[in-house]
């Protein structure tokens, strides 16, 4: 067997020797040229494949980027639809611009010492108060002017809850006070939502939910401004305060039912839904959450709110008779673009605008 194989090899070797005498091999030059051409072809083919691959990747990342932006704007509009504009909070935080409302009229507010248009005074007054006018000088404020001045003819600019946003019709000038925070309140007046554009430590969008809001810093949630509980036509201490807080391991809701200013009486403390040890409800309602996807660097987030007045308080003001809505303008870019193959001069950015009309109908100040 081994012998046979050796014979065969010998035969093959002989044949190879024989054929080599007739057929010419490649010269070095030919080999070099062939290798050169082949390498050019292979290189270009590879570069085409690489281009296709990376452009396909870019398309995919761009698509993901759009999807992330859509998610964010969807999240914001969803919250805006399920709630309505929180005019009370806007009035305190922004208030009417001082160039149209320097101070609140004496006949407009009860028993105050100073009525200058400052944040402190606005927090003290509360939004519904500025709709009151003592029309017959009997020392009692009433609300039948519905957002008009004492003469009943001109719209009262001091009843504006916020400044103008952007006056596009004047050629895009007058960026008076861009609205960076969206304040919303639900139909049951029990939950307030704040959507904000956070600058530091990184550009993102946050959402803060609160049961009530503590604008005067007394540690208790504010009410809807003065309420004439005993019907004497005068404004006294607020009749309802609520708060939610941890009490040991239990999350509790505190309600000042009898208006004595404390939560110490019967039927004023209630456990909040869920098991406090497993559900972080108490934390959730006070905590600020990031709602923008991590892949997004939110460069700018602006809101335009219409109308600038609460239409149900300013019921005689024609301009205010618009169903509450908000425009959301989102400008974002891709965070860590180099990770996705985009260089610094070619970072994907997108500008989204959409409108969200509140699905809460009717006056929620029942």
């Amino acid at each position, binding site marked *: 067997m081994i012998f046979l194989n050796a014979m065969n090899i010998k035969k093959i070797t002989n044949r190879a020797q024989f054929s080599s005498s007739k057929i010419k091999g490649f010269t070095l030059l030919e080999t070099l040229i062939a290798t050169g051409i082949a390498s050019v072809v292979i290189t270009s083919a590879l570069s085409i494949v690489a281009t296709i691959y990376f452009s396909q990747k870019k398309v995919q990342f761009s698509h993901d980027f759009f999807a992330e932006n859509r998610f964010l704007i969807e999240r914001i509009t969803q919250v805006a639809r399920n709630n309505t504009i929180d005019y009370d909070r806007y009035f305190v935080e922004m208030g009417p611009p001082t160039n149209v409302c320097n101070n609140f009229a004496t006949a407009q507010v009860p028993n105050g010492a100073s009525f200058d248009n400052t944040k402190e005074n606005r927090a003290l007054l509360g939004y519904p108060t500025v709709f009151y006018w003592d029309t017959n000088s009997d020392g009692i404020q009433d609300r039948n002017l519905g957002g008009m001045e004492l003469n009943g003819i001109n719209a009262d600019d001091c009843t504006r809850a916020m400044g103008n946003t952007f006056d596009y*019709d004047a050629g*895009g000038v007058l960026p008076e006070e861009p609205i960076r925070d969206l304040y919303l309140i639900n139909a049951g007046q029990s939950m307030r939502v704040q959507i904000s554009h956070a600058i530091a430590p990184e550009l993102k969008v946050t959402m803060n939910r609160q049961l009530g809001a503590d604008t005067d810093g007394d540690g208790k949630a504010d009410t809807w401004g003065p309420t004439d509980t005993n019907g004497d036509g005068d404004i006294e201490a607020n009749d309802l305060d609520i708060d939610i807080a941890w009490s040991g391991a239990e999350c509790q809701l505190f309600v000042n039912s009898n208006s004595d200013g404390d939560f110490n009486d019967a039927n004023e403390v209630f456990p909040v839904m869920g098991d406090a040890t497993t559900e972080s409800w108490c934390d959730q309602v006070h905590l600020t959450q990031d709602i923008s996807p991590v892949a997004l660097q939110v460069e700018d987030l602006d809101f335009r709110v219409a109308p600038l007045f609460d239409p149900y308080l300013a019921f005689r003001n024609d301009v205010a008779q618009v169903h509450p809505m908000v425009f959301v303008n989102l400008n974002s870019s891709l965070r860590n673009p180099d990770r996705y193959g985009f260089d610094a001069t070619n970072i994907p950015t997108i500008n989204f605008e959409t*409108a969200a*009309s509140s699905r809460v109908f009717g006056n929620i100040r029942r």
Partner: protein
Amino acid sequence: MIFKFIGSLKLNSGRKVRGDTILEVVFATAILSTVMIATFTILQRAIDTNLNVKNRVIALNIAREGMEAVRNIRDTNWLKYSGDRRKKWICLDQETDKNACVGNPIATKFINGNNEAAPAYYTVDFHQADERFYLKRATLQADIDFLNGAQTEASRAPSRLYITPGVPKRFTHVATGNTPTPFYRQVYLDIENPYDGALTPAVDGFCGAGDTDDSCQNSRLKVIVRTYWEEESRQRSVTLEAHLYDFFERDEY
């Protein structure tokens, strides 16, 4: 060096080495070009898809804004005409006639002060000073067509959207001082009666037995918002369709 090289080639060809036939060359070229064409087609497709995805997202948001505007006009009518909701819920105040719906507009037609019958095409734009949307009736093409030369740009112009300068930017139909975009938006409105005439007009006191207003008889508004744009010589559009009901504090609808 080069001459030497050419000489060596000549020497080789002179030595009875067979060249490629024309058929072989044609086949090779065909294969090469097929591969190249396929490659570039894929590349072009990827770029086109990227552009299309981007435009589609923008167009969809433009259409959504239009839908939201019509909804807001209905909601505003519920608010502004709270004492006469059943008749005025679909009434359209105009930018030029801000109180077109004040008073008691005559029956039979509903859309605006001109008693225009639905269905009709509108443009919708936000009016900053009045802080509200206005639906504007204009002579519009029923269906925007960029190709075939069937429509002139002038006939499409009322539907065209422009973008405002400054930050934030905003889409508007106002051309002056703004940058044109490739997008066109139209709103189609039609009023319907989901009960096919069976709804009694005497609903919750607002509409009486003798009221023949369309808005009393019919409680459903069909809204179609369509955004058109031209992309790489192709006709593109995004369509949103919804039915808005006059349900607020209505006994039956």
